């Protein structure tokens, strides 16, 4: 077993913890077999799809806040591990806000959130020049209802992989 897969496995372990924090019932649903790994699929630990889905590409924030919760920190730790293992990738972190705020303030708030995620990744060893940030404010919600259920998902920082030369 090489170092890379070891790290990937550790990342997965970290996520088991993170995930079970969030959703203990997921454990019960884990009955499927491992199957064979299809390169580029979410089963391939070096694929962007794996990063998005298994590692988790986004962290959520409380109203008006840009501080990282413990859940957010553990997801970002997984992102940092993945990025350290897959050095071909760079990333742009997109900061977002819910619709409860003025347009321009929310742009700045989204930038704060993206930056908080970036700072965390840097603190875990990811090179700063691999990480860009951009804010979309409230321009790109993923959930469109006007209740806290949707707002909580829209207050997010999403790490989008770029510069993929993965093989």
């Amino acid at each position, binding site marked *: 077993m090489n170092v890379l897969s070891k790290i990937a496995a550790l990342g997965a372990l970290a996520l088991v913890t993170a995930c079970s924090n969030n959703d203990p019932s997921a454990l019960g649903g884990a009955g499927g077999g491992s199957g064979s790994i299809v390169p580029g699929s979410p089963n391939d630990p070096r694929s962007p799809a794996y990063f998005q889905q298994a590692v988790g590409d986004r962290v959520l924030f409380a109203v*008006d806040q840009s501080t990282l919760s413990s859940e957010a920190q553990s997801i970002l730790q997984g992102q940092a591990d993945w990025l350290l293992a897959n050095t071909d990738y760079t990333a742009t972190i997109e900061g977002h806000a819910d619709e409860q705020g*003025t*347009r*321009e*303030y929310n742009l700045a708030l989204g930038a704060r959130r993206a930056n908080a995620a970036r700072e965390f990744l840097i603190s875990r060893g990811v090179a700063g020049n691999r990480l860009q940030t951009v804010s*979309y404010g409230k*321009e790109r919600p993923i959930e469109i*209802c*006007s209740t806290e259920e949707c707002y909580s998902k829209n207050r997010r920082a999403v790490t989008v992989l770029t510069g993929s030369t993965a093989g």
Partner: protein
Amino acid sequence: MMRLLTSLLVGLTLLSAPASAQTGPLRLELDQGIIEPMPFAVPNFVPDTPAAAQYPTDISRVIAADLTGTGLFREIAPEAFISRVNSFEAPIQFADWKAINADALVTGAVNLSGNTLTVRFRVWDVFSGQELGNGLQFSGPTDGWRRMAHKVADQVYSRITGEGGYFDSRVAFVSESGPKDQRRKRLAIMDYDGANVQYLTDSAAIVLAPRFSPAGDRLLYTSYESGRPRIYLLDVGRVKKQELKTQDGTMSFSPRFSPDGRSIVYSLTQGGNTDLWKMDLASGQSVRLTNTPAIETAPSYAPDGSRIVFESDRSGTPQLYVMPANGGEATRISFGQGRYGTPVWSPRGDLIAFTKQNKGRFHIGVMRVDGSEERLLTASFLDEGPTWSPNGRVIMFTRETQGASGRSSLYSVDISGRNLRPVRTPDGGSDPSWGPLLK
């Protein structure tokens, strides 16, 4: 005085009222009146020749719509008219207009000569039988008939109210279509009343918050064209745009012109921190105006250029601050409950319009420049981004409805809080910027 008293005493003593008694005038003081739209009549303008006959009705209708749209005037339906105005030069039969309670009357004529349209008009105070101001005429190509109608309405408005009009003006805004999570935005410009919409960008990149230059010839706006928010300067006449460069890796947004049009103030985000900067447009050089870890955005110049009002969360929540135009100590002016944003200095200089968020609702409000006399004009799920009419009397803003089918549109409201009404746009609309009166 002696004589007066004597006569009074005599009168009281005799308990009679000799009509011949010498008295001064009866003096009364009124402090209560009514506030209601002034009734006016605009009979169709008279065509000088049959060839001109296609214009008068349209012109009269635009004038009436402009005046009615202010909420300060109420049109008397033409069906109620007793008199017909068949000649622009004939004397006015005021009794006929008094009888239908018209306070003001606008008469006019239209002449067509080749491609040149000439519109003449007069404004009458019906009950005094006097003309308000002088008759005027506007001449121009037939294409410009709408502008001529707006100009007539501006004259009528200012002669009666005593303040400048705002009808011959344009509004830049963001035209919005598509669902909330895939909203397409295009920069657009239109007449103040929603006519003549023209698009200035396509919807390939998100565009935000256009701002007119003081002369109305240029627009500042924010676009994601390069992948991140950057400020662009657009020549409105030539539809030619130019990016205003800031450092790589930064976001720049929230630009506003200085009153002389030579520089802009804007927000620059470096890392997670957003401060205000000022850029000289000729040289492209920027200087920093604020330097705090807080978010500072939505700046707006006082009309004299001496101060800038802006939004900052340095206190923990977004509030309004005023600072000298070159930076320096900022004074907080908003102290009510809730969060304040997007302050905009009125063209008269006496008021600041703002967005307020409190208890789950949004409001457009106005306050004096020292923060006193705050008044909220609207209340809805989401109102934001006020812009002033050129005369400082009306505020246009964005109203977004809630839920998955939420839609953005433009509204306007008189600074009294009366006359809240939607502004027609072909699709959704947001981020209006009201330009100056056209020359």
